[in-house]
């Protein structure tokens, strides 16, 4: 009468492996500092590219603004609704972008952002993924605008 518990209950179950926050003894000093005093926060009225992204599950929402001159990012700013890691990742991203060529900017990965932050807890890595997302979208937006 009691059927076999259906598959996916074993160790392999996604939930067990992805959500473990063993390393999550919370945030590095860099994250804390960027959260407390975010760099380059705010709208940029004269942006050349804007990237919007959000994580449908956790609801974090980022908007990245870039100002480009001679294929180089001369200014970047952000608006973010999200957890401490999301805000710090946004702030760090704007710092990292400033002065980069568009090519180099396109090469920034979520790992780079997380590393620059001195690491992120496992359950917060999706925040750096979001940062990578808005970089790509802002660059796309810039390219689209400059083509038209």
């Amino acid at each position, binding site marked *: 009468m009691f059927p076999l518990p259906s598959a996916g209950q074993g160790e392999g179950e996604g939930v067990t492996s992805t959500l473990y926050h063993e390393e999550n003894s919370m945030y590095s000093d860099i994250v804390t500092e960027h959260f407390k005093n975010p760099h380059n*926060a705010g709208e940029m009225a004269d942006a050349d590219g804007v990237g919007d992204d959000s994580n449908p599950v956790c609801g974090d*929402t980022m908007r990245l603004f870039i100002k480009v001159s001679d294929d180089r990012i001369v200014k970047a700013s952000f608006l*973010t609704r999200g957890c401490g890691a999301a805000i710090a990742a946004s702030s760090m991203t704007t710092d990292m972008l400033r002065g980069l060529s568009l090519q180099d900017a396109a090469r920034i990965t979520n790992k780079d952002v997380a590393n620059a932050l001195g690491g992120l807890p496992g359950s917060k890595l999706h925040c750096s993924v979001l940062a990578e997302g808005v970089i790509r979208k802002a660059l796309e937006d810039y390219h689209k605008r400059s083509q038209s």
Partner: protein
Amino acid sequence: MAKSLIYLDHAATTAVAPRVLEAMLPYFSQVYGNPSSIYSFAQEAHKAVDDSRDKVAKVLGCRPAELIFTSGGSESDNTALKGVAFAASQWGKHIITSSVEHHAVLHTCQYLEKFGFEVTYLPVDRYGMVDPQEVEKAITDQTILVSIMLANNEVGTVQPVSDIAKVIKVKSKQIGHGVSFHTDAVQGAGALDINVDKLGVDLLSLSSHKFYGPKGMGVLYVRRGAPFVPQQAGGAQERYRRAGTENVPGIVGTAVALEIAAGQLESNAAHCRTLRDRLIEGIQSRISHVHLNGHPTRRLANNANFSFEFVEGESILLGLDFEGIAASSGSACTSASLEPSHVLMAMGVPTDTAHGSLRLTVGVDNTEAEIDRVLEVLPGIVERLRALSPMTSSPSR
């Protein structure tokens, strides 16, 4: 740990009260005998367990033999549900619970689903309340168990448990077999009357660290005659209902803590209610675009739960943390699951709003000055975060 810590997360856990720790201490290294051993030295430990059981029974208004000491609220919930389900399955395999239960109940229901049980997850209204009539409608002749919490851990809503009990009793007669009624009273202990007969429940879960007792200790009440298969097999402890050498200091601490909590129920509630209302009024008058989650009146005396629009709950927590204030959130980003609080979702709170939730739960040691400090710093934190938010093009702050 800042010396000036303002602890406003009593729903998450509480400090062991000094009197409780004092009562526990002799049982670690002095009266350390195994209660199952027969020599007189060990019988002292045995007696401590018996006396503690008597104390807890007095608070719950039950027989000592109806109590099982467990390792916490989660074990109590798991054991209650599995214990009844596996014992009563000859009558049916249908379980009713609500969509705002603690995960210890909900995930156990999911575990049981894999064994062929069917579970109805009842909806709640916008305040998080279960309607007893919904329980009535949901009961079929296959129903063997209903589990509805006494008070919600996130939003503090107090459920109409005794009304639900009445409905179950009537229906149970109609369908011709017993339907056991379990309540997760983990958040209710120390705040509400948990007399099992007044509540009308057959099983009831407690977790000691929620009422100034030790972590890793809980209680499960199982009414005499209720169907129950023990879920921890082995030795003869706890009347064969829960094997394992007793956590003697933990049991002693549980009983003392519950006794104190029951004795101070009124005064604690009054103290907490004053602070909570000061918090609610202060926040609502100082910050715009804020919603109080949970029931306006049928809520735990110590619980204030808000949603702040345009911002994310964890970032508020972090802002408070840097001011030495400990709070909680039902927001996605504080949990490993990333999902927004299932409780707020069940209450129909919009996802975006749910993400901006903050829970402040006061306790016996909090002061007005502490509340005022929160009211001083919180508006600035929210304002700052809203300034960062892409959702507030120009929200009226």
